[in-house]
Structures are given as C-alpha cells and as structure tokens.
C-alpha cells in the first residue's frame, strides 16, 4: 500500500506550442476529499483527461496506489481503479437507469460471463445477469434512485442524472473517484444535498475523491486539501483554508 492513492509527478501536456498543463504535482492520501480549482481555462479538466487516459501526458507521469498508469488506454485505467463523471453529464440516455449502472458493473471480475455463454444461454448467464441486477439495485438504493430504475436515463431530472452518473462511476469499483464540477447547475439546496452525498460516499465506500468545482463555499466546506491551477501550472496547494487565502490565488480569481 503506497502512501498516496494518487501521485502525479511533473505531469504535463502540450498541444503543439500550447502548454495546457505543466509540472503538476498532486498527492492525494487515502480517504481524502481533494479539490482542484482554478479560473476558466486553467487546465482542470485537462488534468482529469490525463488521469483517465483521454490524453496521453507529454511530460511526467502519475501513479495510482503506487502503480504507474501513464500511457494506458481509458478502459484499462478504469479497470485499475480511476472512475470519473463529466462536466456535461454523459449518461447512456436511451437505456434504463438500472442498465446504466449495470454497464458500470460490466468488467467486474465477479460478473464475468463470456460471449459464448451468453449466446448459448448457459446457467452462468442467468446467474450473472441476476447478480448484476441485484448489485445495481443496491447501488441505486443508496442514491435514492431505486424507484426510477426502469425509467430512461434521459427522462430523469438534472439532479438525479448527476447522482446516476456518480452511481455508474462507483459501480466500476474504483479506488479514486474524479468528479468534474458535480455542483454545476444545482440550486443551494441540491448543493447541500450533494455535499452530504459526497461525504457519505467517502465514508461508506472508503473512497478517495478528487473534484473540480467553482463554488468556493462548496469547496471550502468539503475538501480536506486543494490544488489551485492557473494557466496550466500549480498556483498554490495544501490545506483548503490556507491555499484559498494565498494572495496569488486571490489575485488570480479577482484580478488586480
């Protein structure tokens, strides 16, 4: 067991001459809720895309629980234990809620069932289908979505879609959960609810969470530590209160 769940070393990527991110060093301990903040275009989502394999880093590397994951394709990185949600919600819209979660369970070894077994409808097929459905329902129960399980994902209200996306990410059994602006577009009441949900996930799933957020109150109330990015570089890091009151951070946000 490594000291840090996630450790990036001088992680960076450049698109041609544009350095979207450089020399980013983030260290997240197990069970932390870690915030990644910064003004628009600071490179926050780029970091997420690097960590999930959407982009291949052009500099540096990163380790999940001591294992280097740089250069792996997205699905392999997910199997290793990094799951994410998206800034603009990406659900499987034409599938029912329960099947959305079941897709998340797809590659868990305990639900393995080969194509031949499913085509021939061997007993294993029925067993895994039933087990997956039960597991998916359990997850939906946690997020208060069980009633909606046979609705199409696209018919859910916004807040529930966010929750479903988190449930689907958790279904892949990650070690680290990346949330990209989970509170975007939520009213204060929903945001409060979300804080509780995230804390609950941390406690009951023994999860480590890295999140991007713009709502400072949300970040200050939830995150143990943060990293502030600006123009692709780290501006400040460490304890949430200290980092947020750093003059450089205030300058970057307010200007002047």
């Amino acid at each position, binding site marked *: 067991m490594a000291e840090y769940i996630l450790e990036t070393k001088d992680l960076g990527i450049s698109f041609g001459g544009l350095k979207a991110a450089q020399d980013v060093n983030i260290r997240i301990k197990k069970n932390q809720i870690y915030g990644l903040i*910064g003004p628009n275009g600071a490179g926050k989502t780029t970091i997420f895309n690097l960590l999930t394999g959407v982009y291949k880093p052009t500099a540096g590397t990163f380790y999940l629980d001591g294992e280097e994951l740089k250069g792996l394709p997205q699905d392999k990185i997910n199997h290793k234990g990094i799951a994410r949600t998206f800034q603009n919600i990406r659900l499987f819209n034409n599938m029912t809620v329960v099947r959305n979660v079941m897709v998340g369970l797809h590659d868990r070894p305990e639900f393995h069932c080969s194509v031949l077994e499913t085509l021939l409808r061997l007993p294993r097929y029925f067993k895994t289908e039933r087990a997956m459905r039960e597991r998916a329902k359990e997850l939906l129960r946690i997020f208060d979505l069980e009633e909606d399980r046979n609705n199409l994902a696209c018919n859910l209200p916004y807040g529930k879609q966010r929750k479903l996306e988190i449930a689907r990410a958790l279904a892949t059994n990650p070690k680290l959960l990346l949330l990209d602006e989970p509170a975007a577009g939520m009213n204060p009441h929903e945001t409060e609810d979300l804080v509780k949900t995230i804390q609950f996930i941390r406690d009951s799933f023994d999860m480590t969470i890295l999140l991007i957020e713009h709502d400072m109150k949300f970040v200050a109330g939830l995150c143990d530590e943060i990293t502030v990015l600006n123009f692709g570089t780290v501006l400040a890091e460490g304890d949430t209160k200290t980092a947020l009151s750093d003059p450089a951070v205030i300058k970057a946000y307010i200007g002047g």
Partner: protein
Amino acid sequence: MMKKIKWNHYINYIVIGLLTVVLSAIALAGGHFDSSMLFLLEKVAISIILAVSLSLVVGFLGELSLGHAGFMCVGAYLGGKVAALLEPALGNGPLNFLISLLVGAAVAALCGIIIGIPALRLRGDYLAIVTLAFGEIVKSLFQNTSDESFDGALGLDTPRYDKKYLFIFAFILVLITLAVVQNFIRSKHGRAVTAIRDNEIAARATGINVTKYKLLAFTLSATFAGVAGVLYSFSNYTVQSMKFGYNYSIEILVMVVLGGMGSINGSILAATLITFLNTKLATVLTGDLAVLQNLLYALILILIVIYNNAPALKSFRDRYNLGALLRKLLRHKHDPAKIKDDAAKWDVVPTKIEMNEILSIDMTPQDKKGNTGNGGEH
C-alpha cells in the same frame, strides 16, 4: 425470482417458428407450392436475415454500414463455389449445404474483421465510407474473375439444390439468426454495445473496451450477411455480382430504418413487407410499366415514413398500433408503472441516432463551454 415468461421477448420466435412448422408440414406432406411462392419465401427469409444482422450494427451499435450487400456477395460466391466443388463428392444434399454455409459465413466474418479493425477505430461517418467502398470493390472483384475461378461477368453457377425444401432450411436459419442476435443484445455484451451507441466517451470511461465490442458486433453482423449470401446462391442457381451493388445495401438499410432502428421485430416486419412489395410489383408491372416499379416503391416508402413520424397522426398511431391491438386481444392491461424489471424494454429505440453525439469530438481543450456559465469571477 422472476419466473414469469416474457412473451414480448419470444413473440418473434413463436410467430416465425409456427410459420415454419406449418409450411414445412404442408411441403413434407406432399402439398404443392408453386415455384414463385417458394422463391418468395426464400427471398423473405434472406431479407430477414440481412435486416436483423444489419440492425445489430445500425440500430444497436449506432454505426452506419453501407456495405452489407458486399459481405453477402462474399458469402454467396464462396458458398456457391464450395458447393459446386463439393457436388461431385457429396451431391447436393444437406451436408453440402451445411459445409458451404459454414465456409461462406466464415469468409464473410473474416472480411468483417479485416474491414472493421481499421475502420471502427475512426469516429463518425468513416465506417459508412469504408463499407461503401468495400461493397463496390467486392462487386467489381468478382465481376472480373476468370472463368476458372468465379466465372466473372457470366455469373457463378451453383448446384441445383432441391428447391422444394430449401425454404425450410432458410427459415431455420432465420430462427438461428434471431436467436444469436437477440441473445447477444439481451446480455451484458449487448448492453455494452448499446452503451457505446448512446455515449462512446462515457462508455470508455466506464471501462468498456470500445474497439472490441464494435468489432464483435460488426463481425457478427457480417457473418450473418454471409449466411444470407450462401442462402441466396442456393436459391438462385447463379450468382451475379452486379446484384450486390450499392442499391442492394441501401435496400437493406431501408428495411432497418423503416422498421425502427434498434427494433428487431420492426426489422423483420419491414424486411418481409419490402421484399413482398418488390416481388409483387415486379410481377404486376411488366413491359413498359416496369419503370413504374421504382417510382411506386419509393412512393410507398415515403408514405410509410410520413405515417410513422407525422405528429398529426400520433394519437391515431398510439390507439391503433400492433402492440395495442395485441394487448386488447389478450385483455392485457398496459400500465407503465407496473413494468417488471426484466420486462422493461431491451430494445428502447432512439428514433434517430443522434449524429452530432456520434460526430462530436468535444474532448478538445477548447471545449469548456460549461465553464463560461458558472463563472470564476466571484
């Protein structure tokens, strides 16, 4: 647990199965079908196999394939050739048919893999372009073969299989196709395929091996196009590559689209209807009137599409559709709130595949449109 039989999952097996049993019983008991009727039955079976297999790629995977007739062509030529080569040794009995079928399907599958590996890695319309090219290439390739190999422009002669019983095999093959395609769709693997259709980026992030599943669905589809091809070569005595052009691929695509993308039963109905329509029009309109055939065919298609989509006709459609009539017949109360877990639709149909979703490559760093709304100014 849920031991109740899900009728809606098996209705197509039951209907086609009963039809097969009844017709074969008549044929085997010495009843007489005239040759045009037999030919129509075979054609319908071929169309259903083609439409159901293409629906796997277009309706469930959400990729556009315009070369389905190309895979069929490969199956037809290879199957026909093997059958002709085996005829002296095995005669033209079921064994010959079976071996040709396996060879034709296997070669078509191989073509599917070879086309799929490069083409499926690309996003958007590239698969459509590549499959379109494939269909045309295959067509001209067989067109220009020598007399010793595939008989070139003259067309390959295949053994004269006893036509009286061929339709029974054809319908058994339809049932096998249905079983394979539906069992695939209604499993975790099918779920992965539909997830890719709905949101490829999310599917990747959820740990789905997108390339593997795209290739799997595409190859499965090509395999059954090959099966349909072999069937075609047995049904027609000669295989001419000109038949397998672009038009035929589009005709199969029309069956899938007309039946409702992502609906297997719809594909079956549309395939039957279109084949029937085409054949009847061809027999009714002869001589100078033959030019009207395409016109009428197009007109009927347009009317069906309007009927299916016109908002003004919605209430009419809801009241008088096949499902509602069936439910009324079986006195079955349809209450959406009472849908059991397993009965919930597998084949939820996106009426149109959202092309912009497929085409969008919005993982580019510029695309941070969500950020502007929230502002970082405070």
